[in-house]
């Protein structure tokens, strides 16, 4: 998909150099217990600020349960 990525089945704008942390900011995902996968591969928490998301990627940001 040109200029887009999919995050939890939602299509959003992509930009060059966009990192996992940027995706979280765009999505306003502030919860801490997250599993993040780019095209099915886990990205470690320590790598979120640097790992870049390729154009057209399918990003899953899985929120584990807590609270409730």
């Amino acid at each position, binding site marked *: 998909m040109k200029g887009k990525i999919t995050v939890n089945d939602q299509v959003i704008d992509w930009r060059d150099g966009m990192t996992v942390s940027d995706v979280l900011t765009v999505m306003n995902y502030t919860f*801490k217990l997250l599993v993040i996968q780019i095209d099915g591969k886990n990205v470690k928490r320590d790598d979120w600020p640097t790992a870049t998301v390729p154009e057209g990627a399918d990003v899953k940001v899985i*929120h*584990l349960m807590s*609270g409730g």
Partner: protein
Amino acid sequence: MNIGEIKAAHKQVTRWEYQPGRIDKGYNDRTLHIDLTTNKITEKPVTALMKDKFVGGKGFGLYLLWHATRPQTKWNDPENEIIISPGPCAGITQYAGAGKSLVVSISPQTGGIMDSNVGGYFGPYMKFSGFDAIELQGKAREDVIIVIDGTTNSVTIETAPKEAIDSHVLAEQLTEMYAKDEKDKMNVAVVSAGTAADHSLIGMLNFSFWDPRRKVARLKQAGRGGIGTVFRDKRIKAVVCKTTGIKPNWNNVVDLNAIVERGQRFQKEIKELDDKQCEMRDKGTAHLMEIMDAYDLLPTTNFRFGKAADIGEDINKIHSNVLKSLFNLKWRDLDGCWFGCAMSCCKAVDGFELKTGPYKGHKVTVDGPEYETAAGLGSNCGIFDPLHIIEANFYCDTYGICTITVGTITAFVMECYEAGILNKDRTGGLELKFGNSAAALELIHQMARGEGFGAIAGRGAEYMKKYFADQGWGDRQFLSDIAMVNKGLEYSQYMSKESLAQQGGYAMTNKGPQHDEAWLIFMDMVNNQIPSFEDKAEALYYFPMFRTWFGLCGFCKLPWNDVEPENNREKYPPKEAAKVPEHVDNYLTVFKAVTGRDLDRDGLIRMSARVYNFQRIFNIRRGYGLRANDAQPYRACGPVTKREYESRQERYDKQLVDWMGMTPEAVAKMTIEEKMAAHRTYRTDRYEKLLDAVYKRRGWTRNGVPTIAWLKELGMDLPELLEVVTPLQ
């Protein structure tokens, strides 16, 4: 008045002595029955069937209540009981969160079977004193206290004319009265209600635990469904339990080392990871405030919106950091509601000076606020003032009423006020607009005095929605749509409009809409992990069963998934990671180490399913528990008002296209009213489909009745259950 004078006014009504108990593998194998009408105290054996099929905790409560009552028994009939049972694992101190009790009774609010879980020391102390459960039945003629004294192996009923009724005073009076000295206060636990429980249907019970550092009796709440009202209707002021002190293996478990090993592993996780994850030790569940707001899930002005900004408010005013700054964190890692809980989430505000009510000017310790309290009494009432939340939290606790229920009731009457259904004439002068802190607090004080509009509000939202319509004050349908109540119980504090699975997690819950059976919002709405009806049904099968299990054994649910092992997410696929497999394994290990019973994950689910289905059938026996009782108010499901629709117009319009197959051009031509009607039809129908899928997965008929085949498969085809369900197959 000093303690000596108060005690001197006691008259002993009866005293009963018993043989000392000896716990074996988590059980005393006997329960205590107290009849307040006849003042007869007896013990009963715990049978093999009870242990096998009902386990303990909520299971014992349901079993004993079933046999003590008739299908027609009303909440205020003498034969209704309050049963407190801690479960076989309760009382161990080597694994975090193992001090919970379950309280069961016929609810004044719902008419169905209520269960409420609670921390504090009473449950474990009662067990150490020789009993796996206590049944409180009958009604006293005057105010009494019941004292279970494990140091002398005696139970007494005493008249108690001079004690306070409000919990923060009463718990301390009784702790002082029954402790030998300052050190011994740790060994005294008190269950009490409060003055609002005398005058409302929403009373709750406080379970104390003495805090030797603060030198106050802290309070944990069995909040939901009005059990405190039943307590006061029985003229019980308090139940006190006294023990000789904690022993490391009082439960006489099978394998203490296994528990110690898992406990230490878990403690290490808390120590190393909690600060990076949920900050439970700093903030308790209040850490969720701004998170819920960010995800559009924080109920704001009676569940209309999910964000502070929707009403021009600022979430930062009640941000978890603000609440944290008000907590006294000097003993941060020692704020557990039972010994050994490293999660230590019971935060407290010390030296809080009250500005209103009978204790105005007093400086008090306030337990909480937890997330539910802060959202219910705060954002849901449009009040973004932390000091208001703390004051209202304090008064709800000491008056013995549930903060969640009061929050949802107040939010409802505030919306009614703003919609013109209520006005100053009808509320006796209270200007119950959203955001009016003074009016909200006065409503609580009126509930405690049983006066004015507070006396009406204290009957609950189910009563009010009918009462207002009967008076001709408002449209019946609108009132039903906005009163956030199901089965007669008020909703707890999460927005469920955009999560179909959570709508089920609320409205299909046995006792009424509390999130403690299934909290699936993230899994459903944010992650989109359970897209089909079958996926949602599977989640609504698994999670309630899992959570039920905690309430059978005496565990707290928070240590399960409010911290996760560092490698949890790398090690397991996301759906599995959500279940925190290593913690599940800890629970299975600890359960076996306590009881000697082998258990795997499937066995755990089956164990819970037996009790879960029993509770469903118990409700059916009483005339509830069917499909009609699982209906939800439309506010839980979709936008009721134009303003709600407009606030999320882009989202809702898109759903008309994506979900309902309309063209953007057609949507553009529709009026808001037409769009809202389309949503209503679609969303209501979708919920019915969910009911079908969940009932099928749960082994129930289309009317929500457990099938005979399913009961047989579970080994729950007990004759008394078949008698209820057979005519309904």
